[in-house]
């Protein structure tokens, strides 16, 4: 019997509230961003080097570099929390561990569903901006949105995996949340120290394209095709962190 479907359903029931709030928030930013652009374009102004299409610069500043990307990073970290450590606090972990499936499958189902949710959140601006921009007769290049969606998924998967590991390492759910937020902000600062500063490892920059060779700041557009090697590295990193979480969960005492 395939046990993955019920486990995915269990993981969905546990995280759906957070996921739906995240979808609503990102959707609100994208929709109001397009329909309220007359007012908001005065607030979200591209930097001085920008010489391209004002609408493209504004959407980049609001969504792909700015507020929406920041919220996306926070949301994917919140989505990763929970699982067995939280069930232990709620005294329901015994029921879950008594299910006729291994711990590895339990954790993998949660990770799989979470990554699916990260993918949907990453693709959300593409879907909404494409439709809303059409409605108000402005346009943002579809290929750009798809490429940013891939970058968001790659960066989001790593943020998700870090928070997923943090939720396993800390017994307090709020400590795990604090540690995840700390990672999100301290990690780019750590990358300024040599020898790390030689490499393009800043996830925030990777997701927004800022200071990356595949992004032109003057037009706020990605140049060339998607950076597949970088994206593959991000997915592998996320996979390794999730594998580490599985290993820790397999040997942890939840009594």
């Amino acid at each position, binding site marked *: 019997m395939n046990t993955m479907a019920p486990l995915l359903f269990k993981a969905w029931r546990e995280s759906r509230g957070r996921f739906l709030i995240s979808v609503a928030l990102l959707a609100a930013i994208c929709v109001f961003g397009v329909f309220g652009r007359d007012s908001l374009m005065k*607030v979200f102004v591209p930097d001085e080097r920008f010489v391209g299409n004002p609408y493209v610069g504004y959407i980049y500043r609001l969504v792909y570099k700015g507020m929406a990307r920041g919220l996306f990073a926070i949301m994917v970290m919140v989505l990763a929390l929970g699982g067995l450590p939280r069930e232990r606090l709620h005294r329901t972990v015994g029921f879950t561990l008594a299910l006729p499936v291994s711990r590895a499958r339990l954790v993998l189902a949660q990770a799989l569903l979470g990554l699916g949710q990260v993918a949907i959140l990453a693709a959300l601006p593409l879907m909404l901006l494409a439709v809303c921009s059409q409605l108000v007769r402005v346009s943002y290049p579809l290929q750009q949105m798809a490429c940013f969606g891939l970058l968001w998924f790659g960066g989001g998967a790593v943020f998700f995996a870090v928070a997923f590991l943090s939720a396993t390492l800390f017994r307090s759910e709020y400590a795990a949340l604090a540690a995840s937020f700390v990672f999100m*902000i301290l990690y780019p600062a750590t990358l300024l120290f040599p020898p790390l500063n030689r490499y393009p490892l800043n996830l925030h920059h990777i997701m927004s394209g800022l200071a990356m060779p595949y992004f032109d700041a003057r037009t706020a557009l990605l140049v060339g095709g998607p950076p597949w090697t970088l994206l593959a590295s991000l997915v592998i990193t996320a996979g390794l962190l999730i594998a580490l979480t599985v290993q820790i969960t397999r040997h942890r005492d939840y009594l």
Partner: protein
Amino acid sequence: MLWYKMWRESRIRFAISAVALLWMCSAVVLLQQQVRAHADEPLGYAQYIWSAIYKANALDLYILLVIVLGLGGVLQERAQGTAGFTLSLPAGRWRLTGARAAMGLLQVAVLALLPALMIPLLSPFVGEAYPFAHALQFSVLWAGCGMVVFALAFFFSIVLPGAYSPAIASVAALSIYSVLADLPPLGHHPALDLIDTMHGVQLATFQGGVSLAALVAPLPWQALGLYALVMLGLLGTAGAVMARRDFS
């Protein structure tokens, strides 16, 4: 006893927050030469500290950590099955709420003070100086505005079920407010922009030499007073909701 309970519940979060802020301030000070050398235009040390700590990443970190400190409470304890023990303590619900709020506000104030201790202390090691009085001014702004952020998360933790919903609601509310504060009619009143007040733009003259005697003059006391009222309003509403809520 209540204070000790509240401390036990939040001490790991507080410790993580304190270590993270200290690390962030240390990194900013120690990396100053390298970052300033790569800046687009010449950057004075005071301006660098302002843009790296008081205006940017360290402030974001502080806001997120303050939100996390505001989480918890009896509603979350109900999900863990321990609310009954807390509510059966020989203390009223207002006292329970007051103790948690007071402990949280104290932690928010201590976190706000950390950059003021760390930056002037570390600056001589990199051949620079940063006046303690100037750093203290920013700490007052962080503490004053951070308490509103804390009160917001505290309020949501009492009205919203789920461990993480209050955090998401707080982040969302602050993000929306920061946009609205830049638009008319709120945009015409700079004192109403919480994040800009925390940035301390009006203090960032970068001339150094601010003395303790001059501390009171340039701080936006009117805005801070307004935020204190908002904070008290949020905490009072949270206390009233908590007093009437059925936790069975």
